[in-house]
């Protein structure tokens, strides 16, 4: 199991536990050694004093019995009180009113006198200990009516006992401490091991996909972050490929056979992908039917081989519920650092390639290098769209629609351009898609309409009454306030509704006619002209045409381009002319570039055209010059000469 950097581990628990165990054991050892030692000392002292007390009483009784004749019995007393084997130096002193008798053992007379002097000076009633010449002595004194008996003895026995006890206590303490060390080690490692296990389990739970047992998205993020992080100018991995794998028919399997079957399928696929993946390459399930292979130190050529292997392994049918199911997979991959050096972008590059592979049904795709630059620019533009609208950087260029016969401009189509401060004039293909995916499409639609209305109003003041057409995405029709917005604009600028024409760009993103029907009706009621752009391609159907009740049909340039040579396209144009007549709408031919095309169109009955033959899209100044001059456009040179 690899470490998940996100889940930080507490590794300090072990040393702390050991430290705690050792401290406690030391403390306990210290306490019990001290208590035992003091107890022994007290008990020994007490015993010794008792013994001395008995000896003194014995002496007192003897003296009383013999009635003061002790001086003559010195020898006998000495034998009675002191044995030669006795190691402890001691002194006896007996005082009566008349006599004094002293006897010392292992001490000279001089030493004895000094000891007695010290005793007189130092004795206290609290304890029976005095210190003399660096040695400790115990004393006991009995005062009866006749005698005062003093017995002083060096604490040799007590010292011996205590040293013996101390020695044993010390050794026992070492042993106990030793046991405590073992205990600390065992306990701490048991606890640390348990904590480690819990950590591992948590890490595994957090970084593993429960169904397939493969690592999950969190793990991928961590791994990629670790692999692509830069340390002193070098990344941890010099190169690598990231594969995005998506099953082509997973949804169908889930829908037809149920989720259990879907899960089975995922498990089998995960197994297969894992089988064709060699260490250190890793398979990760990031959700649904999406898998990722992260292949560090893998070149693009090797990546192609791996992608092919994955596609092939997923192409073999899988047996589920007794049925052989063939769910192909689409694989896209991106190479680090060729395509990007950022982990998130790497994933999105691989995804983009995968979607391309899915679209083209090509099995696998390498991320297109060409798009890298575009992608960076896209990101920049996406961020700047708002400002562009606020600062009026989005402007309209105009292309005239011309009456083929006379060459006069009947209306103009406003085409959006982005006057970018750094990148210059941008064509719509560079940013329209961005706008459609940025959630600002409705705002953008309103912006364009407003620009067109402004131009119409301005031109009218200058004596130009040409209507302006603008393109609208079907998404704009989902804008619930669009009709009232246009109405407001027309009122504010005092522009007749028929001067504005809305061209519906209908492509494959075209929404269901039911949804936009209501919006179209409202717009038509305003009096705004509606046109179907690029008619004949995309999703346009005849039902669409019938429901839309458009004022203008703009037949797509693909039919015009080769109208001279392609009889099929000629037939389509001819029938569209008829169709337009039947529906009572104008027909405009787009992309007319040659006189012969114009001639054919005229012969078919198409009256209006737009294209390079007449004029390219141009700036407002230029179109205004054209409009004011009123010269016929695209006239045949022979005719112009006339």
């Amino acid at each position: 199991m690899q470490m998940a950097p996100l889940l930080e581990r507490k590794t300090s628990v072990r040393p702390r536990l050991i430290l705690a165990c050792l401290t406690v054991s030391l403390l306990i050892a210290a306490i019990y050694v001290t208590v035992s030692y003091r107890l022994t000392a007290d008990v020994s002292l007490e015993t010794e004093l008792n013994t001395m007390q008995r000896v003194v009483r014995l002496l007192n009784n003897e003296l009383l019995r013999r009635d003061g004749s002790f001086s003559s019995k010195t020898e006998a007393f000495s034998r009675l009180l002191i044995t030669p084997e006795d190691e402890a130096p001691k002194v006896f002193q007996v005082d009566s009113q008349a006599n004094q008798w002293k006897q010392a053992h292992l001490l000279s007379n001089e030493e004895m006198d000094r000891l007695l002097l010290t005793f007189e000076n130092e004795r206290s009633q609290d304890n029976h200990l005095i210190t003399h010449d660096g040695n400790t002595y115990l004393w006991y004194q009995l005062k009866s009516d006749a005698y005062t008996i003093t017995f002083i003895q060096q604490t040799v026995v007590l010292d011996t006992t205590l040293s013996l006890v101390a020695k044993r206590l010390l050794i026992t303490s070492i042993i106990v401490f030793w046991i405590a060390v073992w205990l600390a080690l065992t306990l701490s490692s048991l606890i640390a091991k348990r904590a480690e296990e819990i950590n591992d389990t948590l890490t595994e739970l957090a970084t593993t996909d429960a169904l397939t047992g493969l690592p999950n998205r969190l793990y991928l993020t961590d791994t990629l972050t670790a692999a692509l992080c830069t340390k002193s100018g070098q990344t941890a991995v010099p190169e690598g490929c990231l594969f995005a794998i998506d099953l082509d028919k997973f949804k169908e399997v889930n829908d037809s056979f149920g989720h259990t079957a879907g899960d089975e399928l995922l498990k089998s696929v995960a197994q297969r992908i894992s089988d064709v993946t060699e260490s250190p390459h890793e398979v990760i399930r990031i959700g649904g039917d999406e898998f990722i292979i992260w292949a560090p130190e893998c070149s693009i050529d090797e990546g192609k081989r791996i992608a092919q292997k994955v596609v092939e392994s997923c192409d073999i049918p899988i047996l589920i519920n007794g049925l052989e199911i063939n769910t192909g997979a689409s694989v896209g991959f991106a190479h680090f650092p060729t395509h990007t050096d950022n982990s998130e972008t790497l994933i999105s590059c691989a995804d983009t390639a995968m979607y391309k592979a899915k679209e083209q049904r090509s099995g696998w795709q390498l991320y297109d290098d060409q798009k890298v630059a575009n992608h960076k620019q896209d990101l920049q533009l996406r961020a700047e769209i708002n400002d562009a609208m606020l600062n009026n950087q989005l402007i309209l260029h105009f292309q005239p629609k011309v009456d083929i016969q006379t060459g006069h401009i009947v209306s103009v189509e406003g085409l959006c351009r982005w006057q970018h401060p750094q990148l210059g004039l941008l064509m719509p293909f560079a940013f329209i898609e961005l706008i459609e995916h940025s959630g600002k499409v409705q705002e953008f639609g309103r912006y364009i309409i407003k620009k067109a209305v402004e131009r119409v109003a301005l031109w009218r003041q200058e004596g130009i009454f040409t209507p302006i057409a603008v393109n609208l995405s079907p998404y704009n029709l989902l804008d619930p306030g669009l009709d009232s917005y246009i109405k407001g604009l027309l009122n504010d600028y005092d522009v007749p509704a028929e001067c504005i024409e809305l061209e519906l760009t209908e492509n494959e993103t075209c929404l269901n006619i039911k949804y936009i029907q209501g919006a179209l009706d409202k717009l038509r009621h305003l009096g705004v002209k509606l046109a179907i752009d690029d008619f004949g391609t995309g999703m346009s159907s005849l039902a669409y045409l019938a429901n839309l009740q458009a004022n203008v049909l703009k037949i797509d340039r693909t039919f015009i381009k080769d109208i001279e040579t392609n009889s099929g396209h000629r037939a389509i144009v001819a029938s569209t002319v008829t169709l337009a007549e039947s529906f009572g709408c104008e027909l405009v031919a787009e992309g007319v570039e040659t006189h012969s095309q114009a001639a054919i169109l005229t012969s078919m009955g198409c009256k209006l055209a737009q294209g390079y033959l007449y004029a390219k899209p141009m700036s407002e100044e230029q179109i205004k010059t054209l409009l004011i001059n009123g010269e016929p456009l695209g006239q045949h040179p022979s005719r112009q000469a006339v």
Partner: protein
Amino acid sequence: MALQSNLNTIDRVLRGMIGICVTSFALFNGDVIDDIFIEVLLGIFGVLNLISLTSGWCPVYQLAGISTKKR
């Protein structure tokens, strides 16, 4: 419980030295300890360490499930 070696060389040598010292102290201390109970205790600890020296195995490590041996 198989006697699987769980001590690294330093650990083993250190225990060996402690084991020899403690065992010989327990056996030949003369009158220093004077207590058979403590002598036996010391003997047990010494012998345990000597076992660790010869086999490279420590029962406490085994119980705790730890090992200082590099794998």
